[in-house]
């Protein structure tokens, strides 16, 4: 299931019906979810986030929104670094105002390049594990494990100050996972990574989420969020504007923003005439390159119709591709229009 909050602007706050983010028919119990209930945060008179309700299951959750939308506020609330003005947050059943229990479960990486001066990669991870309460032997083992997972073993003895941007991102990720948390909260973790490192980090996210972790990632890089996320939360102006699996979110917007599907086939004009007879198709346009672009208010019904036309006419179809069903399009429709 997914939810799209319509007319969710700061001026006219809407409180949409929320549904859980998971699509699994087997409900995930609350003590295995990150639950945010009616949470608002105001900095004096400035709105951070308002009336947020989320229930996040395991897997990778992408938190997407423009600058100042409230992503970092939401993340800081989740890790208990700031307290909500209203509402409550529980991470796997633990209230966020219980740091001793919470930070056993949560690994957090900020968007800032903040490293204590003079430390090398190993010391950076090791010292924070000691602050966590691990004795020398455990901290040493866990440090090397975490460093190996982000492929920085060879650079572990070098000062962090001399690391490249990508290496700094990876060492930050290593400190977030080093104490073996169950929930990873990562603020812009893909910034500055080269394509190779990005692929490695995304693979690591996948590996961790498949092992049962919650990985909550904020990012501006929409196609990567689309690529890695099991579910997304779109946030703008402190309000959640959509949540859920990206396909589900897109389905909910079909009425207002018909889905675009590009079909490459041998007889596009025939296909155009056939599909245009259906009431859910609002536009069928043959493009210069011969492709047929169809806009429909019901993607499911359109695909049924397409199958039927193919069977009836023997149409040779080369490609069927939705062109605006990704998080980028959803983001543009929900947030781009407002901004």
């Amino acid at each position, binding site marked *: 299931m997914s939810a799209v909050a319509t007319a969710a602007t700061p001026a006219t706050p809407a409180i949409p019906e929320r549904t859980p983010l998971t699509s699994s028919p087997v409900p995930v119990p609350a003590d295995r979810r990150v639950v945010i209930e009616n949470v608002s945060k105001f900095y004096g008179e400035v709105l951070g986030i308002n009336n947020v309700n989320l229930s996040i299951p395991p897997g990778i959750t992408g938190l997407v929104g423009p600058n100042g939308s409230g992503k970092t506020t939401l993340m800081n609330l989740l890790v208990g670094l700031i307290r909500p003005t209203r509402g409550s947050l529980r991470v796997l059943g633990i209230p966020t105002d219980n*740091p001793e229990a919470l930070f056993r479960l949560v690994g957090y990486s900020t968007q800032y390049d903040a*490293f204590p001066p003079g430390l090398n990669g190993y010391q950076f991870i090791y010292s924070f594990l000691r602050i966590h309460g691990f004795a020398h032997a455990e901290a040493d083992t866990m440090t090397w494990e975490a460093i190996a997972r982000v492929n920085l073993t060879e650079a572990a003895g070098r000062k962090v100050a001399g690391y490249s941007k990508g290496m700094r991102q990876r060492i930050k990720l290593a400190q977030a996972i080093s104490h073996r948390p169950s929930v990873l909260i990562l603020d812009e973790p893909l910034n500055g990574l080269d394509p190779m490192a990005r692929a490695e980090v995304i693979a690591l996210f996948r590996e961790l989420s498949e092992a049962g972790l919650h990985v909550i990632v904020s990012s501006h890089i929409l196609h990567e969020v689309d690529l890695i996320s099991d579910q997304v939360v779109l946030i703008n102006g402190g309000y959640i504007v959509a949540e859920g699996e990206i396909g589900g979110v897109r389905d909910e917007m079909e009425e207002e923003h018909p889905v675009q599907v590009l079909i490459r086939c041998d007889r596009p004009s025939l296909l155009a005439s056939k599909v245009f007879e259906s009431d859910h198709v609002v536009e069928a346009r043959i493009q210069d390159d011969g492709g047929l672009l169809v806009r429909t208010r019901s993607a499911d019904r359109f695909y049924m119709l397409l199958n039927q036309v193919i069977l009836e006419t023997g149409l040779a179809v080369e490609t069927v591709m939705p062109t605006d069903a990704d998080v980028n399009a959803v983001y543009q429709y929900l947030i781009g229009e407002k901004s």
Partner: protein
Amino acid sequence: MAVYGRNYRRYAGELTPPWSRFLILPRYAYETVFQSKLFLIFFAVCFLVPFAGLLMIYLHHNLSALSFLNIPPEELKKFLPIGKSFFFRGTWLQGGLAFILVFLVGPALVAPDLRNNGLALYLSRPFSRTEYVLGKMSVLLILLSAITWVPGMLLFLFQSILEPSWLGKNLDLGLAILVGNGAWILFLSLMALAVSALVKWKPVARIALGVLFFVSIGFANALNEILSTWWGYLFSAWYVIGSIWASLFGIPVSADELPPPGAAWAALIGGSLLCLWLLSRRIRAYEVVR
């Protein structure tokens, strides 16, 4: 549909006691501090006065070692008095060096963390703001202890061992060394952390500390001159602690030289509380936008 195997296991072993975790902070701070040769030389210089004191106590009890001077032993003892003035002067000299040490080390403790938004790194652990302040403060407290009350107490014990009857008459001196130095190093540490947290920029924090210390001495004197009063002294930490030391060691001072001990204690406690309040306002994972 995603199926999550949940084969990931959290660490379930023993942990170190929470009270000991703040001590991780000084460990790495010392590595940085002692990398500076200038600081190493200064730190060595800080032990010259206690060493001279040690020598004086030894000679006081072994006057035969000075027989080559051809001065009667009773006369020599007058030049080497071991009493309240001896320990007061030692405390005064080491107290001045303590400020220089704080001036060198203090600004680098909190300012870089605040400047780089690094506090979230510490506070997203089972580690509180109080533990963070304690950890950073312990960097200074341990270094300052090493040059103030620890050598002071060692000299006191050395003298007591060499002259057991002296100990009974001068027990209050031991207390004065502990309380006088303890109050001073606690205040200096709090002031350094508060300034470092307030200014956020290391060089400016250093200048601010210097201004607070030296300019306040001049300001105190000017205020007293202009208003013909003594309470201007309360604006200077040096005069305030001087009054406290004098009263603890039983050194007579005139009202024109230093503020009354009661007012001095009140000023020192007030200043410390102000520093604590500033720290509680500034040591936050994220700044509050207003």
